[in-house]
């Protein structure tokens, strides 16, 4: 059993996107605990990939392919997890780009970095209405709500979400980012954390759940 879990871990590190699902199926068929496979295989694998990227040893496409491989295996392993049990994550993050803003590249990178560092990420996409952010925060009860805004005209939308969120779901923490957003601005609108790049976003998120 040890060996096949190590193989799963390596399949993430070597981003074997096309074949990793088969490997995951074998694991399920062999009756190995899917939670062990997720935690010792996938989570360990993606952690290694994330660290390598952080150190500048690998390029972004390698990080993304690693994350895609993890997703492909999770799609097989998660449904096999016995009822009542759940995989351990660092926390749940709901993320999106605010209303009237369609810039998505930065937001997608933040999502990838967060999930490769052990967070469960639910991505709402771009041009997300304030009401939808608030609704999802209520429904999914995430630890963190993360918002991206790339334009001066859409930045105020973040404040528009944070203010009611604090009343409705005070336990949900907020992180904001995007090129025009500054530390000072983030404080002004009452965000809990701000970061200028994707690896900083991970540090911020860890701080909030830690």
């Amino acid at each position, binding site marked *: 059993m040890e060996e096949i879990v190590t193989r799963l871990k390596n399949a993430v590190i070597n981003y074997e996107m096309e074949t990793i699902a088969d490997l995951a199926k074998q694991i399920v068929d062999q009756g190995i605990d899917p939670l062990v496979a997720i935690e010792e295989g996938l989570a360990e694998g993606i952690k290694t990939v994330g660290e390598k990227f952080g150190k*500048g040893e690998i*390029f*972004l*496409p390698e990080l993304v392919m690693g994350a895609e491989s993890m997703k492909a295996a999770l799609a097989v392993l998660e449904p096999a997890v016995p009822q009542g049990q759940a995989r351990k994550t660092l926390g749940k993050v709901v993320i999106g780009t605010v*209303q*009237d803003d*369609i810039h998505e*590249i*930065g937001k997608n*990178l933040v999502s990838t970095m967060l999930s490769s560092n052990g967070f469960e990420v639910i991505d709402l996409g771009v041009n997300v*209405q*304030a*009401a939808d952010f608030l609704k999802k925060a209520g429904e999914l009860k995430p630890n963190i709500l993360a918002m991206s805004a790339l*334009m*001066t*005209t859409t*930045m*105020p939308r973040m404040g*528009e979400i944070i203010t009611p969120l604090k009343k409705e779901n005070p336990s949900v923490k907020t992180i904001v980012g995007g*090129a*025009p957003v*500054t530390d*000072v*601005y983030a404080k002004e609108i009452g965000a809990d954390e701000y970061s200028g*790049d*994707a690896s900083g976003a991970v540090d911020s998120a860890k701080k909030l759940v830690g």
Partner: protein
Amino acid sequence: MPQEQWTLRRSLSGESVSYGIQRGIRFQILSDEDLDRIHWGTLHILEKVGVQVDSPTCRKLLKENGCETDEKSRSAKIPSHLVEEALRKKKSAITLAARNPKYDARLDMNHSYMCANGNGAVAIDFETGERRNSTKKDLVDSTTICDALPNVHVHWPMVSSTDMPPSVVHLHDLEASLNHTEKHVMYETGVTLQDAKDLTAMGYAAAGGEKEYRRRPITSCLQCTYAPLQHDAGVMDASLEFARSGVPLVFFCMPQPGATGPASMVGSVVVGNAEVLSALVMTQLSTPGAAVIYGLGIAPLDMKTTVRAGGSPEHAICSAMGTEMAHYYDMPSCVGVSGTAKEPGIQAAIETYTGCVGPLLAGADLMCGIGLLEDSSCLHLEQVVIDDEIVGAIARLIRGEWACDDTLALDIIEKVGIGNNYLAQKHTMQYLKTDHFMPTLMDRRSEDNWSKTGKKSMKDAAREKTKKILAEHKVPPLSDDVNRNLAAIIDQAKKPLWGGESKVQ
């Protein structure tokens, strides 16, 4: 001798040298066969994959004109004949008129014009050096500087007036620009139908009415397409409104090779080309003959830092190829340059130089993007002044040389003879004015003189020049009447951006 060199020679020997950068040299990256392959490849993608068109109005327009549309995926497949029809209807020469006609930018494929970068949200405070959100004052200062600089020909509001109410930031940007430069003003903030109406109304007011504006459009709008292969609803609805109102448009595609476009530059040009051509189709179906400029700003995503690699050699080569595609379609081009440096200095200079020289050599009609650092985000006034000097040097590089009686100067060579010098010749003075680039910031003095005056760096020199321009350069403002009209338009557009109302209809 090619036609453009004759024209150039005439203008150089005559009294009036026309506005913009004269172009006598051109290098070619794509062969005719390459251009054909990109074109046919693009048509194939438009027919087979199509584009996503978020605006219901635009989808309806495409459907009525024979495109296969799908309401669920919001996509439209565009047959080649529609592209060909749009290319027949489009304009080939577009004049970006200026408040002062001496600054008219004639995009006729024989001149190049330069435009600073636009809409950054951060600025380095000129007095304190602090990095902070940009204000309307920053916009006034940078506009005044662009008005004064000889190698910035068209103006783009460089930063956003983030100290103004959010719903009217873009209108304050335009107001400050119109009042502080006599050059043509291009903006990129018309992202909803209402924005388009307000910005157009301000253009009409500043030009002295709709009729006069349509004759001489003193503003224009740059619109981004949404890579890969998408068109934002607000942006396209606004674009059709601009076209109807006689406001010239740039459709500017920005796939990032490796992220939102194929990692090969040519592959990303195909994606971008499909976006620009499909936007052109919609515009020409809606307003036949509308003025549309072909825009492209393709810079890869740096795969180590995840920053867009503005000012990279790939950025330059893509802007050059974009120009070649535009000219293949007989359209003027507007292509991008920028830089990722964090402060004025060596990196910023290399990025501006690399980013500008390639496209200008390829014949770019309008280049935008100097002056902001952190990839189009942060304003440093000194950098605008330094970049102006860099463009000046490139302008000299691409002007072209030719052998005619006057340049051969056989008579002068004979007259001066062997072993003497040319200093006392009228020919020398004449050519000094036209053929010798005179830097304003680069320090060519001896080491001795340079040391004696405090060993100033180029950035110091740029700072002094900036101060001087701000203190001395005066731009005639618009009349009080016009300003009252502008203020009224801004006032009416103001709404509370709090409480969930959308800017997009």
